[in-house]
């Protein structure tokens, strides 16, 4: 009974007779939870959902009130029923687009990660190759996509290359920044103990780069999807296996506007899911130590 009167942080064993400083530990107050989520957690989920529902309801209302024909602007309900009706074709295309996105992102992680490590090991490599990475980055993908589609016979592979080109730069530049951002006193400490290049990389530079890499990854996830969709738009035809971009084009030609919107909604949905998954991965990897993932009460 008495101990419930004492605030939770004070009930912990006093850390150490370390003077006043010991009490200056960050205080992590216990919060009430519903279904495993705190009040702020629910807020974060429910607020955007509420806004979404309001906007959709308004959209439906306006479309009905103004009598806008569905081939100009379909209401969300019609888009939803189309999505269900055409699920067979659309889901197949979604799968293709997701595959291209996922593979492009994987390639971006592997090549971007490997290149950034190489660049930080050898200044010469960085000076000679990094400018070309920038060239690749600043050239609009719609301008190079036709060339790549001509050069590479396999359509899927050419789409993959396009998506990769768009996706790899944030990972590369962020990871380079991260690898170079290790605390200089820690670098001195490693030198003091005669650390080898490899030890310096493994125990210092890579962990220091992790938050930066994950930041780049979150950007690249979205870009890989954009790259995959844009490249397919340029290609105009997905051949045997067609992704969502081709469905949008096709529906546009056939004036199946609700279907066009349904495919568009799937692209956006995929983008949101990719972002959430990458954010979750990032949170799980950093929650023990990085400021960005720590929930503070003060």
């Amino acid at each position, binding site marked *: 009974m008495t101990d419930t009167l004492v605030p939770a942080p004070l009930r912990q064993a006093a850390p150490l*007779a370390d003077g006043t400083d010991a009490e200056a530990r960050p205080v992590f107050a216990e919060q009430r939870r519903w279904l495993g989520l705190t009040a702020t957690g629910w807020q974060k989920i429910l607020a955007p959902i509420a806004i979404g529902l309001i906007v959709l309801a308004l959209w439906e209302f306006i479309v009905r009130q103004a009598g806008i024909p569905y081939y100009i602007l379909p209401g969300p309900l019609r888009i939803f029923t189309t999505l269900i009706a055409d699920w067979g074709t659309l889901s197949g295309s979604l799968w293709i687009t997701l595959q291209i996105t996922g593979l492009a992102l994987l390639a971006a992680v592997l090549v971007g990660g490997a290149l950034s490590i190489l660049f930080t090991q050898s200044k010469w490599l960085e000076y000679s190759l990094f400018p070309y990475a920038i060239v690749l980055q600043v050239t609009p993908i719609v301008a190079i996509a036709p060339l790549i589609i001509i050069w590479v016979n396999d359509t899927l592979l050419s789409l993959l290359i396009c998506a990769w080109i768009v996706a790899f730069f944030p990972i590369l530049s962020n990871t380079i920044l991260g690898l170079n951002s290790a605390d200089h006193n820690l670098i001195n400490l490693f030198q003091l103990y005669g650390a080898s290049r490899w030890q310096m990389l493994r*125990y210092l530079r890579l*962990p220091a780069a992790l938050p930066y890499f994950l930041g780049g990854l979150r950007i690249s996830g979205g870009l890989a999807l954009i790259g995959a969709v844009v490249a397919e738009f340029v290609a105009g035809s997905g051949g045997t296996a067609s992704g969502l971009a081709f469905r949008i084009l096709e529906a546009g030609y056939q004036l199946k506007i609700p279907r066009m919107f349904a495919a568009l909604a799937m692209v956006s949905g995929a983008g949101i899911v990719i972002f959430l998954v990458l954010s979750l991965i990032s949170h799980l990897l950093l929650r023990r130590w990085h400021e960005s993932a720590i929930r503070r009460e003060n």
Partner: protein
Amino acid sequence: MAWAASNAAKTVAATANRPLIVLRGIAKRYSNGTTAVTGLDLDLHAGEFVSLLGPSGCGKSTVLRMIAGLGEPSAGSIDWPTSDHDAHGRPLRDVGFVFQEATLMPWATAQQNVMLPLTLKKVATREAAARAQAALAAVGLDSFRRAYPRELSGGMKMRVSIARALVTEPKVLLLDEPFAALDEITRQKLNDDLLALWAKAGFTVLFVTHSVFESVYLSQRVMVMAARPGRVIADVAIDAPLVRDASFRTSPHYAASCRAVSAKLVEAIAA
């Protein structure tokens, strides 16, 4: 106290022998043209507790870093007469270093941080873990092995940093204004604990500080440095008994020593 007597005896015995570290005519000129230090001589004997005191920017950190081998002097020599040397004739410096900031790896627990020097020297993980635990226990952080740096107070982080410096059981502990960022009470507690560790383990300490009181309280000798260019202008012995506690702070001897060292520091700043 027994340890005090034994360490004092060791110091007396060691002074008769060759010093542990000998700096002669050390100069350091940085590539931007700054002359941080010139003509600096310094002897460090085994078991001693020496402070390097001086105004900010007088080259204290520069000297400490050169002793640790982080940066070569532009002129002069740093010898370790009693230490082994490698195939190239370089001394095998046996030092632990404590920076002004705790400088811990935020992604590693207290224990993993303390294990680092051993990990880098390829000591087997199990042995490294056991030694790191012992070192953490020695600084009073037994129960915080699994805590991450962000979960520790400033004073506790500094303790982890000291444990990490001592885990290799070095001959020399170099500290660069280690407690400057801490509050007064924590600082005094850490001063006492550092003295106790030194007395027990018998390593040699070179302690950089800009606080007259801290240098007098801790050390057997205070080397006072002047700036622009950095050089030693006085070497003041604090021949108080080695058992030092709150009563020493109020003793006339402490007051007299502080006055003497302060006078030298005033000279150093005027010089």
